[in-house]
């Protein structure tokens, strides 16, 4: 694009208005523009990679990017992902909601690894557990069929495994009771045919 490369600008008359490549390299506008181009390119790649669904999500992702090891941004990000999952669930987008819950789980787990005291550890654990249980509940709804149709046992087994994982960590009594009830519901649903109606 430099003027020196084109037939017209190589003529002597155009030389004063078209500086050579060396002058271009020293031009602060060009250098600044190239730096801005590099920054914006990285930003565009990160934007497409993260695929944020709302301005709020962009904010929480930026916070995590600024302080990737901090507890608070991770917890905020996890809560924001839970909100996104709930929105997707309300809109009937089960696959999207499951994906958002999985992201929230990951963020809560990371937050749990960066806790400074037991209060933070408990908060992160509870958030992680409730997210896993929400996801398992959604999977139960997605995998369960009427008694005359075969259930999607793979989804139900995965949901049960998630609940068992939650039951393996120390939790507050309400969360523990919720996990136990959900496990029982999933196990009952996995029974063959009308046997799912019979209580244990």
């Amino acid at each position: 694009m430099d003027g020196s490369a084109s037939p017209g600008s190589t003529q002597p008359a155009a030389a004063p208005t078209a500086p050579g490549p060396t002058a271009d390299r020293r031009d602060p506008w060009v250098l600044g523009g190239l730096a801005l181009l590099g920054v914006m390119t990285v930003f565009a790649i990160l934007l497409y990679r993260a695929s944020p669904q709302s301005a709020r999500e962009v904010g929480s992702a930026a916070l995590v990017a600024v302080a990737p090891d901090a507890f608070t941004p991770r917890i905020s990000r996890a809560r924001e992902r839970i909100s996104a999952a709930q929105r997707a669930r309300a809109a009937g987008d089960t696959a999207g909601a499951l994906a958002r819950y999985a992201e929230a789980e990951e963020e809560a787990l990371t937050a749990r690894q960066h806790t400074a005291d037991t209060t933070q550890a408990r908060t992160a654990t509870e958030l992680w557990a409730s997210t896993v249980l929400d996801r398992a509940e959604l999977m139960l709804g997605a995998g369960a069929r009427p008694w005359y149709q075969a259930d999607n046992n793979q989804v139900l087994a995965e949901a049960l495994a998630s609940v068992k994982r939650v039951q393996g960590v120390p939790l507050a009594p309400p969360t523990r009771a919720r996990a136990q009830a959900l496990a029982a519901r999933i196990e009952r649903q996995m029974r063959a045919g009308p046997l799912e109606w019979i209580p244990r």
Partner: protein
Amino acid sequence: MTWTPARRSVAASLLFLAAAVLAGVTPLEHGVEYHVFGIVEGLFALLLGYLLVLRGAWAAPAGVTGWAAVVYGTVATAQVLEFLFPPPGLVQWVVVAGMAITAWSVFSGGTPRRLVASLASLAVILALVRYSVIPVLWTRIGPAQGTAFGLGDVAESARRIFADWQPVGPAGELIGFVAVCLWALATRLVWAPAPGPAGSASPDA
């Protein structure tokens, strides 16, 4: 501030980048979709980039800034094509195959102005197919999915063979329009100087 060729190239690269980013963003009712061009759009953008440089609509690349403008321009072209091409299906195969076969004869002759005019006409036709023809036919060919005792599902399968279309709202079309405007503005900035006594950079040359 004087607009030297290098400054024009850098400004054009920034505009091409903005066009590429915007062309792939589609706001939906619940969230946002981010589209990245595929192999079809990428190869077509390479062909168009080559023709634009060959015909002088984009100045021949020289130096880092010149090459940056061409690279970003090609990516932006691919993203704009992603926005304009019909969705995958029979319609896309027919349209793209027809364009690829006739591309050389349609775009290679004439002046840069003629090439850009041809591209503008092509953009109008592609937009017509994707954002007018397909949506209108979609709602009128057969019953809707999940209705008419299963016939709707059969009709939906047939529709998906023709075009795997997803509805795009007015906001999505507006963002795409802004992306196309940015692409045109960037192309205006890197318009090749016509071979003349003063090296004029006017598109009217």
